[in-house]
């Protein structure tokens, strides 16, 4: 039987112990503070006696006891004041953290879903529906419940929470927060925060004293009356220095007690979340998404520390070990799902404007500030959007960076125009050839011989009639420009993709076996073989588990690939380095290493590619952005650059950009 009044009573009884410990903390703080003040006063009196023997002695107890009283009242009043302020409702905290009230009329589709989920969970928990606030500036995933009574409770959700979590995960998070409401944790938390504020106010007072002392000290000497002011400054400074650590120590002790109980309550709340939703996967999934997100559950706000005990997952990173407000994510997940394999869930951060800043930055770098120019970056970087869980309504954010972000990923007009121009230049017979499956396979085979620079004689297994056809095609192909051949490859492979289930010619088995045994001794052969295999779906590499969630984990591999690409796209080393510097901005590496071309052999490149295949989608996107930056750095696409990007994407199993040699990445360039 779940009756929340009973739960609350039990929770209150449990928290009595906590209150006792806090009372000890406050008492200790008051006594130590009074001792410090007594010491100062007695020292002062002693100095006065030395200076002026007629000065009366002051028994320390006469200083100490009033001091205790004054400090106690001081701490009590400021705690009381803070609690009163917090009692005004969870609303205040939500607004302090930058939350905005969600209303049905103005909510976007995603926000509406969040509102509905809150209502659903309120029914499951049997409590009134609380107001929902969304922290639109926070791209991380976190949530909090606040408010003293169940009736005036408030639920806060970060934008990441609304965007990245699916319905079940969101239910888990909201149910977790409801269990805090249900168990009266908010009441306890609010009191603790108030009491700690009282203790901390001693430190704040000390800071004031030090400031005052400093002001007196730096006053122009003409305005200083005499030594009296200097004396006052010294006394104030001494008091300040003595009092300052006391508040902090009291606070630290209080935090220690509070954190220990808070961690236990988090486990309890996770358990309740399962009880309310009857679905452990929901909340475990949400925790896994946090583990996979680079911004995690951090909430960037000056109030985060103060509110850290209200959050779903820990709001700041500094708090670890004994001071951690929340148990480690891994432990929480394992308690919910003992068979968890340790792999977090990755969401498509591109769906959100999480990297808004990064995108805007890259664009302004490329265009010298004209970030609104839609045609700044070439279209080639098309990340697959299959991982995306949900997308925020793009109307929701009318941020200027938004429209430009999309332009990076969309094929722009002039790229298409370039493609069309090339297509027109191709003799009509090629278009006709591509209409038939035999023609497609013949073109692909001929293209493979030309592009990988393989002599026809080396493959005796090709029957004579077919060899003749291929030879006939190879001759005009070698006359073509690289761009035309690449376009022909694109057209042929698109044809293959469209007819995957349909008939193939006798040439296909030959091409397949040739590709399986093709030597990869040069970069050109390596890139083209990968492209052909990708196009024909020959031995597609199985997708390894996403093992890397942080850019730093693939640092070396990313540097190798980017360096190689920069060399491919630039005519000299200085240009390459310049392009590299621009590109690595997106990876936010502390000390990126630029590799020389002779340092990167094929073997090394392959190792790097293998590493990068294990990168999570968020890194993939940032890397694609960096690659786009590399290409755009010199405003033109060289043959080697196009080959390398295509080959890399094919080898990595990422979406392959239709990058053509000779295309420009900026209009008119």
């Amino acid at each position, binding site marked *: *039987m779940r009756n929340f009044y009973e739960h609350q009573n039990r929770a209150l009884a449990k928290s009595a112990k906590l209150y006792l410990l806090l009372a000890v903390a406050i008492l200790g703080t008051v006594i130590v503070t009074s001792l410090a003040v007594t010491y100062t006063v007695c020292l002062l009196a002693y100095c006065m006696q030395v200076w002026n023997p007629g000065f009366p002695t002051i028994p320390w107890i006469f200083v100490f006891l009033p001091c205790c009283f004054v400090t106690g009242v001081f701490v009590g009043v400021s705690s009381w004041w803070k609690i009163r302020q917090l009692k005004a409702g969870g609303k205040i905290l939500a607004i302090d953290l930058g939350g905005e009230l969600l209303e049905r009329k103005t909510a976007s*589709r995603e926000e509406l*879903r969040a509102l509905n989920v809150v209502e*659903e969970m309120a029914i499951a928990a049997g409590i009134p529906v609380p107001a929902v606030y969304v922290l639109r500036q926070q791209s991380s995933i976190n949530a909090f419940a606040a408010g003293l009574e169940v009736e005036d409770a408030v639920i806060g959700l970060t934008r990441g929470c609304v965007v990245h979590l699916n319905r079940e995960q969101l239910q888990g998070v909201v149910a977790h927060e409801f269990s805090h409401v249900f168990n009266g944790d908010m009441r306890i938390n609010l009191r603790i925060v108030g009491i700690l504020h009282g203790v901390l106010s001693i430190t704040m007072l000390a800071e004031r004293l030090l400031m005052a002392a400093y002001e007196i000290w730096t006053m122009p000497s003409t305005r200083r009356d005499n030594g009296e002011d200097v004396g006052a400054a010294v006394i104030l400074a001494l008091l300040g220095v003595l009092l300052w650590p006391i508040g902090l120590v009291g606070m630290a002790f209080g935090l220690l007690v509070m954190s220990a109980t808070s961690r236990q309550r988090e486990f309890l709340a996770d358990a309740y979340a399962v009880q309310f939703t009857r679905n452990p996967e929901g909340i475990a999934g949400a925790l896994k998404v946090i583990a996979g997100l680079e911004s995690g559950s951090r909430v960037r706000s000056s109030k985060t520390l103060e509110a850290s005990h209200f959050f779903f997952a820990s709001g700041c990173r500094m708090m670890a070990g004994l001071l951690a407000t929340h148990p480690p994510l891994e432990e929480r997940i394992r308690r919910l799902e003992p068979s968890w394999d340790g792999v977090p869930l990755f969401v498509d951060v591109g769906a959100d404007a999480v990297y808004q800043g990064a995108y805007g930055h890259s664009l302004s770098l490329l265009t010298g500030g004209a970030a609104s120019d839609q045609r700044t970056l070439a279209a080639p970087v098309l990340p697959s959007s299959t991982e995306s869980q949900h997308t925020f309504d793009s109307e929701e954010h009318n941020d200027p960076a938004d429209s430009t972000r999309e332009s990076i990923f969309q094929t722009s007009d002039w790229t298409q125009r370039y493609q069309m121009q090339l297509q027109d230049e191709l003799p009509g017979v090629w278009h006709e050839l591509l209409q038939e499956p035999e023609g497609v396979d013949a073109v692909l085979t001929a293209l493979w011989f030309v592009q990988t620079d393989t002599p026809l004689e080396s493959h005796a297994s090709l029957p004579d009639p077919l060899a003749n056809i291929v030879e006939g095609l190879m001759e005009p192909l070698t006359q073509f420009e690289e761009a035309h051949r690449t376009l022909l490859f694109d057209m042929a492979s698109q044809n293959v993709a469209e007819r995957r289930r349909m008939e193939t010619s006798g040439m296909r088995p030959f091409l397949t076996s040739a590709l399986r045994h093709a030597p990869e001794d040069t970069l050109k052969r390596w890139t083209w073989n990968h492209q052909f295999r990708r196009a024909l779906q020959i031995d597609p590499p199985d997708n390894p588990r996403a093992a890397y969630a942080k850019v730093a984990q693939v640092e070396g591999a990313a540097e190798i690939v980017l360096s190689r690409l920069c060399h491919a796209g630039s005519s000299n080393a200085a240009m390459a380095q310049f392009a590299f510097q621009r590109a690595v901005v997106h990876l936010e590496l502390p000390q990126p290493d630029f590799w020389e071309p002779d340092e990167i052999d094929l073997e090394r490149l392959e190792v790097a590619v293998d590493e990068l295949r294990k990168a999570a989608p968020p890194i993939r996107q940032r890397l694609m952005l960096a690659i786009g930056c590399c290409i755009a750095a010199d405003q033109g696409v060289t043959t080697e650059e196009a080959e390398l990007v295509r080959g890399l994407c094919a080898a990595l199993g990422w979406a392959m950009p239709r990058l053509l040699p000779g295309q420009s990445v900026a209009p008119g360039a």
Partner: protein
Amino acid sequence: MIPALIATGIVVLLLISAMVTISTYNQLVALKNLCDNGFAQIDVQLRRRYDLIPNLVECVKGYMSHERQTLENVISARNQAQAGLAQVAKDPGNAASLQQWMGAESSLGNALGRLNFVMEAYPELKANENVAMLTEELTSTENKVAFARQAYNDWVMGFNTYRESFPTVMLAPMLGYPDSRLMVEIEDQVAIQQAPVVSLAS
């Protein structure tokens, strides 16, 4: 002396049993009200669901002229379930009408599952803002029904456990609670489970 002791003992015993009876009665009333409140919550959400369904059908009708039968099934199942709920609401304790309504409810679930399945084949439906809105509302309302049922069942379990445990089990019939309450169960939506497996390979 002894009769006086016996008399005192009887008075004390009577007092104790009176107190037990009173507290048992109060507890039973509190739990019963909790259950009734829980049922009222299901009732509210179900009504909302019954109101939403014709709206959704109206919205998708234009797109799905070939699916007349599916849409008609949804509407007729909805009407039956609505009528069944009206019966149950009159007398929440009546097991027979509850059972009848639960049958109607599960056939409505089947019809809706079928509709959802058919809707998947119309991509333009998903693009329609109104349809998306209604589907979200319907999803949420169905979740609310499920959660309300879950809460109701938990409360019913609490009530039944209390009513059937000693000594309440002896007192309850005298206090006007002769029967345990029935939990609301709606059969698994067969249609969803039996939906044909869609091959994703192109």
